């Protein structure tokens, strides 16, 4: 059994909570005491139906205001797969939460109300999913029961979305007509949509091939921690612990360490359960090398003929996540893989209107939830790849050095 992480974006109106409630309920992941608590809370609020949103909106402020504010993580499993849902809010003022949820997702579900068709919000959600390079997208055309399961309505929405998605470079798209409330095409194919020949949503989630989404070509191993027991049993042991970002490593492989550029070979790949013949993402292992080199946290192990260029000038798409706006010349701390470096914003190329994708090249700052393209310079070189090619070595976060808060997420477009 493997693991699939997916993100859902939407608001109560789109039926997002109903959909999640349905998936959890049908996979028997809602418990009777949780359901009883939700029933009691719904009754107390005077709702005339069981409000499944109360199941997922966990914070007092969310329940009081009836909105989803922050990302919540939910879990369910079928005999085929374990699923982690990043349940994110849909409103534009929570774009940063959506970006957060999408950052680790293998798949994103964008929900539309069949009665309303594609709206600004659906395009924004699809755009954010592709910006974060979520490899699989599902457009769930919900509330099909309210349009008499009309093939025509479904096809119109599908065609419109497909032509929009073509502009976004969506790697893999499925469009599924559903009724989250009644369960049509959620677990099994619905008899109400004989004109639809695709899988049910759950079948799609269970059978989607995600193993090949990882980058298994470019070997990247950011050194996280150096293990030196200096014990009687292991007096000379020196291993480099970390999580494989991409590519495959094997004992005997010739490797290069950046930024020093020294080369050597892998002598062993250790785990507490014994040595392994190979390591691939996202394994957490400890690598031993043939030669003793000066290697520390923040260094990158790669292959001599496939190495990222150590770079200090970085072009990136940025999602700004804090109230105080980003200004040119602002100094920040950048965290990329296991390396941190001070950075300065050199230029704001443009701010993107996330609804229309219009680029405002006159923008002089980025505000909370804005997305834009910027250039920055770091004090030390970073070993980066374009985010399009490598999510693990193409993404970074920016921290405020005074408050220590995380204030932006960046996706590298190019570097030198």
């Amino acid at each position, binding site marked *: 059994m*493997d693991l699939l992480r997916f993100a859902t974006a939407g608001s109560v109106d789109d039926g997002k909570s109903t959909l999640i409630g349905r998936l959890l309920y049908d996979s028997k992941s809602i418990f009777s005491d949780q359901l009883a608590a939700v029933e009691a809370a719904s009754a107390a609020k005077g709702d005339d139906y069981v409000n499944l949103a109360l199941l997922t909106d966990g914070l007092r402020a969310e329940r009081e205001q009836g909105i989803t504010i922050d990302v*919540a993580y939910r*879990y369910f499993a079928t005999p085929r797969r*374990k699923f982690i849902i990043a349940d994110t809010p849909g409103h534009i003022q929570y774009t940063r939460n959506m970006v957060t949820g999408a950052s680790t997702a293998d798949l994103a579900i964008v929900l539309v109300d069949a009665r309303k068709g594609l709206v600004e919000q659906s395009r924004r959600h699809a755009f954010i999913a592709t910006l974060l390079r979520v490899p699989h997208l599902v457009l769930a055309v919900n509330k099909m029961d309210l349009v008499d399961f009309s093939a025509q309505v479904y096809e119109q929405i599908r065609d419109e979305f497909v032509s929009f998605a073509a502009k976004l470079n969506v790697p893999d798209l499925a469009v599924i007509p559903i009724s989250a409330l009644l369960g049509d095409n959620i677990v099994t194919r619905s008899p109400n949509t004989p004109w639809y020949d695709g899988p049910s949503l759950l079948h799609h989630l269970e059978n989607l091939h995600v193993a090949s989404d990882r980058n298994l070509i470019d070997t990247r191993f950011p050194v996280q921690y150096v293990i030196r027991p200096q014990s009687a049993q292991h007096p000379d*042991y020196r291993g480099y612990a970390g999580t494989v970002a991409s590519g495959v490593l094997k004992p005997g492989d010739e490797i290069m360490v950046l930024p020093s550029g020294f080369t050597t070979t892998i002598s062993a790949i250790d785990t507490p359960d014994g040595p392994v013949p190979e390591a691939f993402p996202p394994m*957490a292992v400890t690598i031993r090398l043939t030669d003793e080199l000066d290697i520390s946290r923040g260094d990158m192990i790669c292959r001599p003929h496939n190495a990222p260029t150590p770079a200090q000038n970085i072009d990136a798409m940025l999602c700004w996540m804090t109230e105080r706006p980003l200004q040119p010349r602002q100094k920040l701390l950048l965290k990329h893989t296991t390396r941190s470096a001070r950075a300065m914003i050199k230029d704001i190329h443009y701010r993107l209107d996330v609804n229309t994708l219009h680029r405002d090249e006159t923008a002089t700052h980025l505000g909370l939830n804005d997305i834009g393209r910027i250039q920055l310079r770091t004090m030390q070189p970073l070993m980066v790849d374009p985010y399009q090619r490598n999510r*693990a070595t193409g*993404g970074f976060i920016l921290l405020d050095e005074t408050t220590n808060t995380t204030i932006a997420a960046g996706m590298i477009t190019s570097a030198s």
Partner: protein
Amino acid sequence: MTVPEYRMSHLRALEAESVHVIREVVAELERPVLLFSGGKDSIVMLRLAEKAFWPARIPFLVMHVDTGHNFPEVLEFRDRRVAELGVQLLVASVPDAIERGLVREPPDGTRNRIQTPVLLDALEKDRFSAAFGGARRDEDKARAKERVFSFRDEFGQWDPKNQRPELWNLYNGRIHLGESIRVFPLSNWTELDIWQYVAEEGIGLPSIYFAHQRSVFERNGMLYADNEFCRPRPGETPSLRRVRYRTVGDASLTAAVESEADTLEKVIAEVASTRVTERGATRGDDKFSEAAMEDRKREGYF
């Protein structure tokens, strides 16, 4: 030619994520401590810490916030496990804190809520900048919203509305003096994952997790052990039943469930088919309000 798939099971993927988190804390924060109660989640967390640094020893201390209301089987297990690993155990004792006047014994004798000041006091006294906790997001809806690296201000408080965004596997552990980070390496594990991992790894657990005969009585629909910390009141009659514990906490608050599951296989089958959440079935402390956990976490609870 077949192309290798490089597949990983969900348990190995979760394990790798947790190991990454634990290493990240040690690399970035100066004085971490691992909260270890002898319960199944903290036992798994300790195993993951062991794996993260193998063949070196775990490079931090282990702390138990001890309410004084313990199951003897659990204390015995705690001490044995700590000795095996060669790590140093600190005990932050609630009874001592009551004696010192740091906290006052609540009239109902339950010590869950007064653990918080004791924990905060111990963290501050030893200047720990990070504390690993075994909490999982599937346990409670407030926890479902909490970060893996959860920032605490100088009063140890959690501010759910003002959490740091957490993207990819990039964690922000930067703090000022006096502030701290609670780290939850098991955030993405479920109760079933824990049990499957325990079985796959052959991890030992205190015996009370498996079905046994015990004298219990019913209170508010839950089964409490008749022991020195929790006596039946008039009208509550103890009887001998076959039970096991799904969670291990304060012995005056943690309820048992009726069960025939006396082996790992049977426990996994039981957990996979249960229709009641772990905390709902066993914790008196979460029943007070819709937001009981959120409120306690704001104060600095685990």
